[in-house]
């Protein structure tokens, strides 16, 4: 645990969609750099998910994973954005 997670700022457990296919991981480690919550950890020769519940599904690791080993349903964790999405029957979008 580190950063926000350390200070009691943890969110709902067991909901995060992050998945890792270790067989595809080339161990480049960019995901370790871009993750804002230390979700992933080096586990040679690849990486591993250390703390899935700390993931906020921002998609930074997935977008920067060249071999495509990571997968998540990305989006904004914002109630207003999700509500707008429901009302307009479209993708959630925030206004800020």
């Amino acid at each position, binding site marked *: 645990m580190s950063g926000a997670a350390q200070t009691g700022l943890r969110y709902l457990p067991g909901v995060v969609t992050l998945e890792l296919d270790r067989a595809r991981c080339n161990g480049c480690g960019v995901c370790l*750099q871009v993750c804002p919550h230390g979700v992933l950890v080096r586990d040679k020769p690849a990486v591993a998910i250390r703390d899935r519940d700390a993931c906020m599904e921002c998609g930074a690791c997935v977008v920067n994973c060249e071999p495509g080993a990571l997968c998540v349903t990305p989006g904004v964790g914002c109630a207003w954005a999700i509500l707008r999405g429901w009302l307009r029957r479209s993708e959630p979008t925030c206004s800020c």
Partner: protein
Amino acid sequence: MVMAASPESLATPVGRVPRITGRLGGREAFGRLRMRLGIGRSRYRVTPGLYAIGSPSPDSPVLVTANYKLTFDTLRRDVDGIDAWILVLDTDGINVWCAAGKGRFGTEEVVTRVQQARLAELVSHRTIVLPQLAAPGVAAHDVRERTGLRVVYGPVRSRDIGAFLEARMHATEAMRRVTFSLPERAELVGVEVVEHFKIVLPVVLVLALLGSHSVWAGLVRAAPYVVALLVGTVVVPLVLPWIPVRSFALKGAVVGAPLIAISLLLPGGIASLPAAVGTVLAGTAIASYSAMNFTGSSTFTSPSGVEREMRRALPLQVGALVAGLVTLAAQGIWG
């Protein structure tokens, strides 16, 4: 658009580049205050393009940022004393993290700006430094393939850039972690209050004053709802980590219900028990809803989690609001 440059500019092989300083003045302080109150946020921008800070040479680092002026000002303040090129992308005046989430601070924009700025002719190295929080929008490997430039993700906070550069572009674990400390949360309170109150407060005041025989009685009647809004926009954000439940909607409800009940004790407040129950129900619904909306300002909530809690909370919030208002109407509170 605000030109953030001093009148000076720097002659370079790619033409004159506006030169900026890291010193912020009263105008920037006032601008920051305005942003923190949510006034004119969508128009607070700088012109995208290349800038020079200090006296950069072809060896100096290239720092890429967004064109939200608050972001730009924070960056130049924090790199004061460092010689660097600053490449400002067009992110529609939105901060780095939000713009990356929307794809506006994205691979395409980085590639386009890098080519427009003719970086290859300006600097001798092949590296650009992007804020770590741009990563949800930018695929570093795609930028490299399309421009030949290596993307290095810098620290989350611009105040760590000096140490990051000193360490030959290495960010420590702590520099890579997003936090949500009390001062960081406190800075968001102003916008929360303004955004919620400008919608809900007029309605509450009109309803309360219409159904009351005096202005004071109307204000007393409105008080529980003002408290409810303050719970969701001020109290919950500030004490967030210390409320022992995870769901934001529930945080709003458990903090809101007792505080709203206490606000009923104002002199001239609601006397009958059904009216008190109705007010607490409706107020708690509002506190819960506005606290739930703070998920959008937090730095750690996942969309899957927010959707999960909304599916549970929204029906309860609507139910409590309706039940509360019906009870109050039956009591003849509002005429």
